[in-house]
């Protein structure tokens, strides 16, 4: 329980410091371009890792189950340019149906 509050506090304070650092410390000076190139790639690298681990990971195991059917439904919804909430609902409903009929 208290561990969760530490996580909440550190992420909250850390994010505030990150957001405030440029405007408070640096004024108008830009970051070195090599560093900007790395920071710009952090989000795609981490988000892709999160897709992979939340779709396939189960503790320290790689498992294929109904989540993959949900992810497939999400891909279809994204190709149809559905809003994020529809994408998420499509995945949840597809996975729930798959489990209901005994897949994964």
């Amino acid at each position, binding site marked *: *329980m208290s*561990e*969760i*509050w*530490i*996580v*909440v506090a550190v*992420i*909250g*304070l850390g*994010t505030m410091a*990150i*957001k*405030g650092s*440029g*405007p*408070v410390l640096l*004024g*108008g*000076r830009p970051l070195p371009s*090599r560093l*900007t190139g*790395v*920071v*710009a*790639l*952090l*989000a*795609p*690298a*981490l*988000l*892709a*890792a*999160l*897709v*992979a*681990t939340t779709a*396939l*990971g189960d*503790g*320290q195991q*790689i498992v294929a189950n*109904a*989540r993959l*059917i*949900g*992810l497939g*439904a*999400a891909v279809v919804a994204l190709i149809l340019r559905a*809003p*994020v*909430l529809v*994408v*998420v609902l*499509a*995945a949840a*409903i597809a*996975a729930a149906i798959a*489990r209901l009929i005994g897949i994964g």
Partner: protein
Amino acid sequence: MEQPPPIRFELRAGAVTAIPLAVAVGLFGVSFGVLSATSGGMGALPAVVMSVTTFAGSAQFAAASILTAGGQPMAAIAAALLLNARYIPIGISVARFLTGGPARRFAKAQLVVDESWAIAAGGDGHFEQGRLLGAGIVLWLAWVSGTMIGVIGGEALGDPAALGLDAAFPALFLALLVSQLQSRPAIGAALLGAAIAVVLTPFTPPGVPIIAAAGAALIGLARR
């Protein structure tokens, strides 16, 4: 020199422009609330406090998914803060357009999120402070109230797996990822990041593969 429009006008313009996005952000907040309040999540009150203080969707979902998977608190913290590292260059880009002393600039910088930043962008590196703040306030209210609605609804729901809510996480991260894949290096970093995470999963505690995947961003050094 042209007189800038009064800040009250720009505040309202930013707020109005943000309303359609705020609907989406609010619904996104509802899903964060639902996923946090159902069994195995961080719980209702921590989720609301996190939305109030952190106000960054992908980082909050990352922390929530690592905690739900039984990962270490340090892994959740590191993943969330690495995801928010993009706010360093984003903050720098708006820095010279925020007025006031350090405390006021710090407070205003908290309203910077991807969407308010985009609304405030006037092209050629110029940002409109009023629009940024107006949009940021509307989006923050939507995010926090959405989270509250989600935790209230989520506590009434049962087993997240039976409802397919465990499939909601990868779908959500995929939706967020797609908007980031606008260049070849971004696609390369995504593929490499996913590969690192999958390869490390059997050998490390949950959460660690995600942090290691941040190393994929180093390919940004190689192409200059």
